[in-house]
């Protein structure tokens, strides 16, 4: 646009300029007064110009505001921060929005977001301010924050509860278990056959209860006793898990192979536990042939997903969710021993690492467990 020539045209033809001014002022009126953004110009802390939306937000008539103090509506606690923010922004000349509370004429507290910019108005320094009402968004945010805090609190409480009961129940149970075993040792074949049978049930029940409590304790420890996250080489993790399963691998003639595995961010001990549980399951739930376990990894954005594939008995799809619940078992203790806690622990560890665990399986052919960790999720604790 050739500003120079346009100006000289207006000077040469004053009637054109009058029309132009009229148009501009009309445009200004529309833009300023009908704007959905509360706008004002203030000088020396006093409103010089305010629009309808600003008056609406503050609950006043426009006339009532003109000449009044611009900071007068800010909630007392927020005043200092607003003043500092305004000074900083005016100095920097930038206009990043900041949020604070105002009190309306009707004594309602609202959240607003404001930006200010240094301008000249009637040849004097002034502040141009724009604000919008963000009360609803703030309320939703607050509610979300409350709910999140509440959920975290109840989660922590639950973990603590599980930890305390499983820990504190162990001591008295150890007494029951020890002394029923001592009874069995000293008095078997010395009382009658009923007594022997009763004692053996008591011994067996106490032993099973101990294993359940230990597993419950281990489960609750995932959250309460986890280590801070660090870089973890997953090939070392798998090697460690395999070393811990050495006897089971040798006895079953299992072959466990793994691809190049990445380094992730996590809790090494817990990751070993996941691989140990998954490889251990692959060996435990095998068919007649020697188990074959294949481990691979694939990275997508910040998620690393590990796949642990076996040629075992498989799981029918109706159980593919429930097997991750605590104490969930699909077989009798005689068929396969265990408390049904292993996969629940894996799930909890995956979640602590910002990931998930799932299974795809063909009964009679084998299962593939997918276990993911988030590289940037970090430790939620």
């Amino acid at each position, binding site marked *: 646009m050739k500003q120079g020539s346009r100006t000289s045209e207006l000077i040469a033809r004053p009637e054109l300029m009058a029309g132009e001014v009229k148009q501009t002022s009309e445009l200004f009126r529309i833009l300023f007064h009908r704007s959905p953004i509360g706008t004002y110009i203030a000088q020396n802390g006093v409103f010089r110009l305010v629009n309808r939306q600003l008056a609406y937000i503050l609950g006043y008539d426009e006339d009532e505001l003109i000449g009044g103090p611009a900071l007068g509506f800010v909630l007392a606690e927020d005043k200092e921060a607003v003043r500092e923010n305004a000074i900083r922004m005016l100095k920097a000349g930038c206009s990043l929005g900041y949020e604070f509370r105002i009190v309306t004429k009707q004594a309602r507290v609202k959240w607003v977001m404001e930006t200010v910019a240094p301008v000249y108005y009637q040849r004097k320094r002034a502040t141009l301010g724009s604000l919008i009402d963000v009360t609803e968004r703030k309320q939703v945010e607050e509610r979300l924050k409350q709910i999140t805090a509440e959920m975290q609190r109840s989660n922590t409480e639950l973990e603590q509860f599980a930890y305390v009961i499983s820990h504190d129940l162990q001591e008295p149970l*150890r*007494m029951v278990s020890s002394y029923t*075993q001592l009874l069995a040792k000293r008095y078997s074949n010395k009382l009658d056959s009923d007594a022997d049978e009763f004692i053996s049930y008591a011994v067996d029940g106490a032993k099973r209860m101990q294993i359940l409590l230990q597993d419950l304790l281990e489960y609750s420890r995932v959250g309460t006793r986890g280590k801070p996250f660090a870089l973890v080489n997953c090939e070392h993790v798998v090697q460690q898990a395999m070393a811990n399963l050495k006897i089971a691998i040798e006895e079953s003639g299992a072959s466990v192979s793994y691809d190049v595995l990445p380094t992730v961010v996590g809790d090494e001990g817990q990751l070993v536990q996941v691989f140990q549980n998954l490889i251990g399951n692959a060996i435990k739930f095998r068919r007649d042939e020697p188990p074959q376990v294949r481990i691979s990894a694939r990275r997508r954005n910040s998620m690393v997903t590990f796949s642990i594939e076996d040629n075992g008995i498989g799981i029918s799809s109706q159980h593919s969710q429930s097997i991750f619940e605590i104490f969930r078992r699909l077989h009798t203790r005689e068929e396969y021993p265990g408390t049904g806690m292993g996969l629940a622990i894996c799930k909890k560890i995956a979640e602590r690492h910002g990931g998930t665990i799932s299974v795809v399986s063909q009964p009679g052919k084998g299962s593939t467990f997918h276990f993911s960790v988030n590289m940037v999720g970090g430790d939620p604790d």
Partner: protein
Amino acid sequence: MTSQLAERIMAILVVDDNPGDVRLTAEALKDGEVESRLYVAGDGVEALAFLRREGRFGDAPRPDLILLDLNMPIMNGRQVLAEIKEDAALRQIPVVILTGSREMDDIVRTYDLHANCYVTKPIDFEQFIDMVKSITDFWLTMVRLPMEEH
């Protein structure tokens, strides 16, 4: 090496507020190799009175080994351990921490207080019996300790 020690009846002081555990320890010792006599203190104050031959413990023997629980009322195991290891007359007696706690914090703190070793009470009965036997066999027959004039 073991003969001179084994000829004497060994005195073991068990400091534990759980009579069930004390009895289990006694049962285990009955099966053990070492001929021993068990003395029991139900809390830390009693344990220190025994060791210092105070009050009714005037003619208490000096134990050859102390099995010390951590969580006890009145005076806990850590405080007892600290007192023993600060006392020149007592600090050479081996103190085995025998507790239900598996917390790393407890382990670190008791070694800092110069515990001679830390053992977690096994949950399994047979393991508990074996553990007591191993501890007493080790501390009362295998290791060499400074001899006290009796």
